[in-house]
C-alpha cells in the first residue's frame, strides 16, 4: 500500500520535474532561438564571473530572480482576490493534464507491474479536454479582475478563440478514437506499436494525417501563441489579458504558456506519433520486419521508450517555438473564419471518411 503510493508520488514528481524544467529551458530556446532566426545576438548581459553560458545564466537565473523580486502590483480598482487567483488557474490545467500522458510501457519488478504513467483512467482523453477547457478561466478572470479595457478586450478575444478551437480539436481526435477504439491514452500508445503491411508502424499520423494537421493547428491556437496570439497582441492591446500583471504572477502566466506547449507536444506525440513507441521495439527487444531479432533487458527497453518519448516531445516543442518566429499574426476575423468555417467542416469530414473506411474494411 505505502509502496504503491510512493511509486505514484515518485512518478508524479518525475513528470512535474520534467515538464517544469522543460518549460524553463523553452524560455531560453525562445529567446536565443528567436535571436538566431532574426540574426540578432539575444540575451547575453547577465553572467556569473564572466560565464554567460549562451544566455542560459540570463534566462534561467537572472530573469526568474528579477521576476520574483519585483513589486507585485494589483490595480487599486481591480479585484484583489481574483487578480491573485487568475495566474494559478492559468497554470493549473497545463500541469495536471500530463498526469494521464504515458511516458513508457510497463516495468515488471518482482511481482509488481508498474505502468509508466501517473494515472491510468478509462476516460483519459476526455479528462484532457476537461482540463484544457478550464484553462480559459485563467485568462478571463485575470482580464476582468485587472479592471483595464485592454486586458478585458484580450480576455474576451481569448475566451472566444479558445472555445472555438476546442470544438475543432475535440472533433479531430474523434478519428483517432474510432481507429484505436479506446479513450485510454496508454492503450492508444500501445496500439500504435503494431505494424501496417508488416513494416509501417500504425502511428496516428499515418492513419489520420488530416486529424494530425487539424489537431496541431488547434493546439497552437489553444496555447495562444503566434499566429494565434490575438488575446495578447502587443501592437493592438499592449499585452492583452496580462497587461496589469507584474513580478511573480506574470511569471506564472509566462511559465504556464510554456508548460502548455510541453503538454501540447506530449499530446501530439501520444496521439499521432506513437507516444513512447520506438519502431519495431517490442517488450523483449527489437523485432525487425526483415527478420532480425535483437533481445534486450526490460530496463534497457523502458529506458529507450522514455528517451524516445522525450525526444519526440522536445521536437514538437521546438516546432511550436520556431513556428512563432516564422509566421505573422492573423487578423481576428481570419482566426474565427479558420476555426469555424474551415477546420470544423474538415474535422467533421474526417470523422465521416474514417467511419466509412472502417466499415468498408470490416
Amino acid at each position: 500500500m505505502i509502496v504503491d503510493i510512493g511509486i505514484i508520488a515518485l512518478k508524479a514528481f518525475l513528470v512535474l520535474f520534467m515538464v517544469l524544467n522543460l518549460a524553463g529551458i523553452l524560455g531560453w530556446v525562445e529567446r536565443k532561438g528567436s535571436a538566431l532566426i532574426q540574426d540578432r545576438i539575444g540575451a547575453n548581459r547577465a553572467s556569473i564571473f564572466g560565464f554567460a553560458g549562451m544566455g542560459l545564466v540570463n534566462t534561467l537565473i537572472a530573469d526568474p530572480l528579477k521576476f520574483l523580486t519585483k513589486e507585485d502590483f494589483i490595480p487599486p480598482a481591480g479585484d484583489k482576490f481574483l487578480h491573485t487567483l487568475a495566474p494559478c488557474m492559468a497554470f493549473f490545467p497545463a500541469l495536471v493534464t500530463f498526469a494521464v500522458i504515458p511516458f513508457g510501457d510497463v516495468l515488471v519488478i518482482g511481482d509488481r507491474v508498474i505502468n509508466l504513467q501517473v494515472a491510468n483512467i478509462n476516460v483519459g482523453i476526455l479528462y484532457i479536454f476537461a482540463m484544457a477547457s478550464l484553462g480559459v478561466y485563467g485568462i478571463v478572470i485575470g482580464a476582468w479582475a485587472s479592471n483595464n479595457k485592454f486586458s478585458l478586450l484580450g480576455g474576451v478575444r481569448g475566451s472566444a478563440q479558445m472555445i472555438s478551437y476546442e470544438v475543432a480539436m475535440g472533433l479531430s481526435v474523434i478519428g483517432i478514437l474510432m481507429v484505436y477504439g479506446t479513450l485510454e491514452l496508454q492503450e492508444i500508445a500501445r496500439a500504435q506499436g503494431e505494424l501496417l503491411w508488416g513494416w509501417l508502424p500504425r502511428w496516428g499520423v499515418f492513419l489520420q494525417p488530416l486529424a494530425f494537421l487539424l489537431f496541431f493547428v488547434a493546439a497552437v491556437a489553444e496555447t495562444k501563441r503566434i499566429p494565434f496570439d490575438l488575446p495578447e497582441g502587443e501592437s493592438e492591446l499592449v499585452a492583452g489579458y496580462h497587461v496589469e500583471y507584474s513580478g511573480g504572477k506574470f511569471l506564472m502566466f509566462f511559465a504556464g504558456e510554456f508548460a502548455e506547449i510541453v503538454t501540447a507536444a506530449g499530446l501530439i506525440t501520444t496521439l499521432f506519433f506513437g507516444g513512447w513507441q520506438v519502431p519495431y521495439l517490442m517488450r523483449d527487444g527489437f523485432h525487425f520486419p526483415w527478420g532480425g531479432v535483437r533481445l534486450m533487458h526490460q530496463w534497457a527497453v523502458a529506458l529507450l521508450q522514455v528517451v524516445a518519448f522525450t525526444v519526440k516531445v522536445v521536437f514538437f516543442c521546438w516546432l511550436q517555438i520556431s513556428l512563432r518566429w516564422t509566421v505573422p499574426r492573423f487578423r481576428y476575423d481570419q482566426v474565427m473564419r479558420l476555426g469555424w468555417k474551415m477546420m470544423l467542416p474538415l474535422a467533421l469530414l474526417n470523422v465521416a471518411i474514417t467511419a466509412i473506411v472502417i466499415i468498408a474494411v470490416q
Partner: protein
Amino acid sequence: MAPPLIPFFVLAFLLVITSLMVVFQRNVVHSALSLVAALFLIALFFIMLHAPMVGVLQILIYAGAIMVLFLFVIMLLNPAALEQRRGVWWWFGTVAALILGGLLVAVMTGTEPPPDPAAATALFGSPEMLAKSLFTDFVLPFEIASILLLVAIVGAVVLAKREP
C-alpha cells in the same frame, strides 16, 4: 461500494457553501465563479460514485464551456448597469423558492434507500456502457434532444440576423 463518508461530507459542505455563494454574492462575476466551483464539486461527486465519465463530462461541458459563455456575456454586457433590487417580483420569488424548498425536503425525507443496492460492476460508468445504452435503448430521446438543440441554434441565428 458505498462512497467513503468523510470525503463525502467535506465535499457536501463545500458544495453547499459555494451554492449559497452563487445566490448571495452581490457581484455577478463572483456568483458565476462560485457556480463554476459548485459544478466542479458535483463532478467530484460523480467520480466518487464510480461514474468518472459523467464527472469528466460535467467539467468539460458545464464548467468548461457553458460557464465560460456565461462569463463572456457578463463581461460584455456589464450587468452592474442592470442592477435592480426588491421589486414586487422579489416577494413572489421568495415565496416560490420557500414552497419548492419545503416540497423538496418533504420528498427527500420520505425517500428510503434501496435495502440492497446492486454492486457496481467493473464496466459500470465506463464509456462503453454509456454508449451502449445511449445508442440502443435511448437512441430516440437522444436524437430528439440533439434535434431540439439544433432548432435552438438555428432559431438564435435567425433572431440575431433579422434586419431591424
